[in-house]
């Protein structure tokens, strides 16, 4: 009789799940997943995803690193919290998805370029000013892929910008930093270093 390794169990590749547990914020929470799919049924964008959250968790367990980190699903979370509220095992699905998105981004995966650009510019602006200045954020987001795209994007959205100004819903004052910006940056630097998500880079 042929001798089978691992008492007949197939050789599961656990290196990616270990990587997720260690480096992804809330990554360990997926250990609780029982594959019921309530998260997928509750998600407003699950139909647009290549793999619903439930399947993403299964793929992590199966060691599918490339597929998970380059999946558009992890960038399509609208942060509506329906999954977190309904998960019968209490998994904060949204937080895991955010953690995966950040980790993928840090590892050089960009499954949704526009969303990645927007998120990056958003965060950069908080780091730079301490607050969000919507007009400046849109400008930076539109021009994130270069000048030509920027002009094109700007023209496409120009009517909306003008409407917002006319209706007093765009702050026209030049952007201003909060008073404590230096100390805020010091704190954020330390948090980036002490927290998860940026390892292995």
């Amino acid at each position, binding site marked *: 009789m042929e001798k089978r390794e691992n008492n007949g169990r197939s050789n599961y590749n656990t290196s990616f799940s270990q990587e997720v547990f260690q480096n992804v914020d809330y990554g360990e929470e997926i250990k609780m997943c029982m594959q019921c799919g309530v998260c997928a049924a509750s998600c407003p964008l699950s139909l647009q995803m290549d793999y619903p959250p439930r399947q993403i968790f299964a793929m992590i367990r199966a060691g599918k690193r490339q597929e998970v980190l380059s999946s558009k699903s992890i960038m*399509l979370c609208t942060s509506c919290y*329906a999954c977190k509220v309904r998960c019968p095992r209490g998994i904060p699905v949204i937080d895991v998805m955010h953690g995966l998105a950040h980790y993928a981004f840090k590892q050089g995966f960009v499954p949704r370029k526009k969303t990645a650009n927007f*998120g990056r510019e958003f965060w950069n602006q908080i780091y730079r000013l301490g607050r969000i200045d*919507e007009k400046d954020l849109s400008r930076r987001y539109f021009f994130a892929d270069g000048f030509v795209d920027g002009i094109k994007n700007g023209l496409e959205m120009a009517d909306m910008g003008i409407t917002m100004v006319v209706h007093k819903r765009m702050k026209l004052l030049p952007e201003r930093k909060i008073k404590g910006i230096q100390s805020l940056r010091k704190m954020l630097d*330390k948090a*980036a270093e002490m927290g998860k998500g940026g390892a292995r880079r």
Partner: protein
Amino acid sequence: MKYYLYWGCSLEGSGANYLVSLKPVFKTLGVEFEEIEDWNCCGASISYVGANDLSLKVLNARNLALAESKGSHDIVAPCSSCYIQMIKVNHEIKEDEELAKKVNQILAEGGLSYKGSIRVRHLMDVLYYDVGLEKIRQKAVKPLNGLKVAGYVGCQSVRPYGEYDSVERPVIQDRILEALGAQAVAFPKKMRCCGSGIFLPEMEYSFRLVRDILQDAVDHGGELISTVCPMCAMNLEVYQPRINRAFGTNFDIPIVYLTQLMAAAFGLDLKREAALDHNIIPPETILKAAVG
């Protein structure tokens, strides 16, 4: 009744009609407030791309620490994103001693600390539980006379904690609308997400979400939609012409903040105090017809 008011970035820009109307409404109801000095952005729903979770926690802990250093009032956050980010961190710091230590170690870099003594509340929580429907009814000298309003709750103002209202079947916004004399319209999509923070980069997908919400509100008789979230307001109102173009629909339904309806029902100035001139799809005609 005094609170720290954390109004956040949106209410100074695209959500200006929310803040402009909120201030006189608070004044009418006798609610005092103080701005958290030198507050920073909460991180909203998209920063996670560039920041790890601890950074987002620190961002909110700084605001909580700044409030705590001034006293012990509750923080009221009218923006649902500010609310959820802040209350989440507040909960986690209180439940997880190790996290609290870590966060305080980082806050110390800026000479701050947070003990965890501050309570974070949503505007609707304060309106319903502290101010009370009776007071709101009393102040509604120009009741909305059965105006059919679809009270859109969206996601982050009640989920995930359900601190003051049900996470699946919230009623508080409807009760406030009724206290103003309006008729709160029931519509199944009132808890469905509008696309929130990824609306702009994921417009194609988000358009469908918003189309379904608008259609649902209209189908159930809503003459206007009220909201308590600057992202909901932006996504449902400002993109309506583009959604019409994309789907061949002809939505023309005003989206107003609950506080704008309150200001109107309280008999305050429709332009200066209810900020109706800030709305792109004008609600004046419908409101004036109701108020008389």
